[in-house]
């Protein structure tokens, strides 16, 4: 479980849980609710270098596909391979078993571009 209250959030509705030199990422509870039943998740390959704010995964509901953007730049160090057989975990536990990937932080300062839990809650409510 990656405590939502200490996670950082992107405007594109990903969360990031920073732990030392890497961060775990997933999509927010708000996002999973909007996307509805997740039936497929396409994850980046381990070793791929991703950039903050650039698409690196895809999450799909029955009706549509949504890009997932990396909250940090860096190398993908691990992915949640179990989502392949359990996409429903994204809905059931977006901050737990439904995590997407871990990224090694190339630019830790990028956290300044993300929102706190309170800021994100406000962002969802007001769009600001």
């Amino acid at each position: 479980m990656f405590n939502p209250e200490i996670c950082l959030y992107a405007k594109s509705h990903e969360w990031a849980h920073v732990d030392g030199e890497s961060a775990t990422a997933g999509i927010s509870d708000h996002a999973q609710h909007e996307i509805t039943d997740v039936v497929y998740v396409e994850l980046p390959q381990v070793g791929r270098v991703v950039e903050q704010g650039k698409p690196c995964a895809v999450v799909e509901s029955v009706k549509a596909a949504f890009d997932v953007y990396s909250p940090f730049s860096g190398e993908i160090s691990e992915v949640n391979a179990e989502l392949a057989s359990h996409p429903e975990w994204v809905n059931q536990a977006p901050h737990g078993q439904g995590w997407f990937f871990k990224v090694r932080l190339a630019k830790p300062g990028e956290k300044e571009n993300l929102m706190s839990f309170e800021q994100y809650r406000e962002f969802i409510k007001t769009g600001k």
Partner: protein
Amino acid sequence: MKRTVLYEEHVKMGGRLVDFHGWELPVQFSGILEEHGAVRGACGVFDVSHMGQVFVSGQEALGFLQKINSNDVSKIGPGKAVYSHLLNENGGVVDDVIVSCLESRSYLVVVNAATTEKDVAWFKRHASGFKAAVEPASERYAMVALQGPRSEAVVRRLFPEAAALPRFGIKTQQAEGREVFVSRTGYTGEDGFEFIAPNESMPALYRNLVEHGKKEGLVPCGLGARDTLRLEAGYLLYGQDVDDEHTPLEAGYGWVVKWNKGDFIGREALLRQKSEGLKRGLIGLELLDRGVPRPSYPFFQGSRRLGELASATFSPTLKKGIGVGYVDRPGEAPAFKDVSVLIHGRKAPARVVPLPFYKTAAKGERSLYVQS
């Protein structure tokens, strides 16, 4: 946006409303997977009030309907319905419809929402030579579909007489002091019923269905589940899988064309197409690995592009990606090797499969393609 008379009910029940061809309708309530599963395993109820109704009556109503329909309307007497295609002179499909015989010389045609105006114009144009009255009634009627193996148990409580209807049977019943047409038809591949009632009486009828259906596991369903259910069952979505440019033969619906019933619009063109051989046809694909195909995604045999998917989705029942699309020389399709669908820039392996993707467990005569 237009709203159906059940709009308030949808809002109350937490429906997620979307714009569907100008209609504000629920795409889902509890979730597409749950709703889909309920219809396959118990039952679900759909608001399909956007669909159109046209009454056709008069001395030559049958002659008129025979002229514009590919299926044989003379085979249905009072209390029976038939699925049919309306064709243009080139054999292209103007619409796919269900024609019901209410009584001798009196018919009800249920048409698609987006094509209602086009169909009414088509009807009127071709009715001129017949003693037949064409009466569009979509504005006055609402329509609901109750689908799934437990539907009959629900109908038994509300309309005991209608519970005994055979597949494609139709009966006039009373609800809220008004007439309601109850038919054993649907668009899900399961047993089920459809109700066509005047706008004023539909909200109460719908609430009754929901209330009496609870014990049978009924859930309110949206258009999302309707689409996955119908695609699994091999039903066409007009405008997406078939249209004015595609014939029923190309769509794999040759069984709705009755060659021996006498002349009808489009017959000659179809005969020509039949004798020349099909140049293209609709085939089914399923993905071999995970991934979700979508309409308009291109598909391939090796490096050769075969076409674009017309309809495609994740199949909740089969738990894999499925889709249909047109290919040239469809007869050769079953032997295609190395088939793939381009998904997000990656070719996902697939194979050609016979349609439909899913058939409900046989119960009596209720096979998809058998109409009594």
